[in-house]
């Protein structure tokens, strides 16, 4: 199924933002908030893993039902998980499409990676593992 992915601030993202290598930050920023009917359709329960595929790759997140998002839309807190699949085009404004990406979602048995693993996949080297 395809969805519109919106990213944004949450309190939990904000309180963990100065400790980005923590498990709490990884949990929050890898959460894919969805409408419960969409989860039903995909056969998902809270905290089930999902593969989210965007225009430049895929990333594993965990689905959580939220009354805040409408059907057909997912909300992901700002962070390295959403940015792993967001394209860098800015339409000559400097600003990528952080709130208007179409993504495909399917259930998976894979686990979400850690922030360290995501960074190392892109050529980085984890420091405080």
């Amino acid at each position, binding site marked *: 199924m395809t969805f519109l992915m919106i990213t944004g601030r949450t309190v939990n993202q*904000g309180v*963990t933002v*100065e400790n980005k290598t923590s498990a709490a930050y990884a949990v929050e920023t890898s959460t894919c908030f969805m409408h419960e009917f969409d989860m039903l359709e995909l056969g998902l329960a809270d905290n089930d893993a999902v593969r989210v595929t965007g225009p430049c790759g895929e990333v594993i997140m965990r689905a959580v039902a939220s009354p805040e998002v409408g059907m057909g839309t997912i909300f992901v807190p700002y962070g*390295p998980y959403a940015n792993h699949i967001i394209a860098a085009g800015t339409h000559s404004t400097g600003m*990528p*499409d952080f*709130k208007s990406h179409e993504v495909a979602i399917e259930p998976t048995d894979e686990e979400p990676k850690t922030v360290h693993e995501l960074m190392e996949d*892109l050529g980085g080297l984890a420091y405080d593992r």
Partner: protein
Amino acid sequence: MIVKDVVCPFCGCLCDDIEVEVEENRVVAVANACELGTKKLMGEQRMKNPILRDGNAWKDITYEEAIQYAADMLLSAERPLLYGWSGTHGEAQCVGVHMAELVRGVIDNTSSVCHGPSILAIQEVGHPGCTLGVVKNRADLVIYWGANPIDAHPRHLSRYTRYAEGFFLENAFRDRKVIVVDVRRTETANIADEFVQIKPGGDYAVLSALRAIVRGKTETIPRTVAGVTREQLVRVVDLCKGAKFGAVYFGLGLTMTGGKYKNIRNAIELVSELSRHTKFTISAMRGHYNVYGSNEVNTWMTGYPFGIDFSRGIAFYNPGETTAVDILARKECDAALIVGSDPAAHFPRRCLEHLADIPVVQLDPYPNATTAFCNVQIPVAVTGIDAVGTAYRMDGVPIRTRRVLSTGYPSDEEVLIRMYALMQGAKA
């Protein structure tokens, strides 16, 4: 010891009524701050000393070695990028601009992926804004559009709008109406008097419809606009026109969606339309505590607020070309100095792939996502905790932050001044 009137260095609200309890040079309790500010003020996972990437390992180095490394990196680069700047004080930002000019680099701040589009709109049609105090004391209507202050600026509501007392309002809670416009039913939407839920991507159309209704052209509006009924749009306009003083606060819900700065332009033009009937203002909900200051410092020093390219020897500004995401995605820069931000957590992956290919030096108190892409990271004091400096609140009011701890970490300004001195010496 309790330190009073501390300025919170988290978001653009720069709350200046925080009380911090310090024991044995540690923050043990924080009063008055929101959860975001409390966590930041009590943060303890600091990096202990500068580090250097040595193959597939990290080794500790001295500040002197780290600063020399950064200076050499910037001097030998052909097109260095100096990015970040929103998480530091104005005095450090000034040094950053001088450094960028000296090495003919590009200096950009986090507003290019935040309210940069808002600034582009303001450059087109102006900014009818005001200070937060004016809104607190006078506004009887507040509109949050594409903003969710309960999560992002938690005390905005209690200090200035929904739950604030107002000097010219008899019973502020009863007399002040709040409208929330969003694609999500956020927590903020739940405390609104009127919640307008727009279909994603529909902001521009709804703003245009509201402008038409303000102009008396209600008959031209279809039954629904981006999921919003005509009746609700008319009700919103009636609330706006009936207000004595209205204030619009918009967030990244307008800057990050399709249309980008054109959304903001339309919102500003709606506000000027409404100002033909009553008093109305509009302002951005700025994120980092000193992102506004970074725009101010850049503007008074170079004429431009962000994305400034010195490669021609003069300041050149062309968002989309001279902004950090674009420069990294095009694999254009050959070195990066990152100060007070974390692009590896907030930039699209293509940008990170290039960060992995070039030398990177970062000034940041904490290990963060960008640390993984650094050749050198230099830990610095946190402005507002163990360093003082000037920050600009979201309404453009400069506020001097206070120091509550003495840790021995150098401030961003101190490190950058030493780096700049080395660079000037080498150039001479």
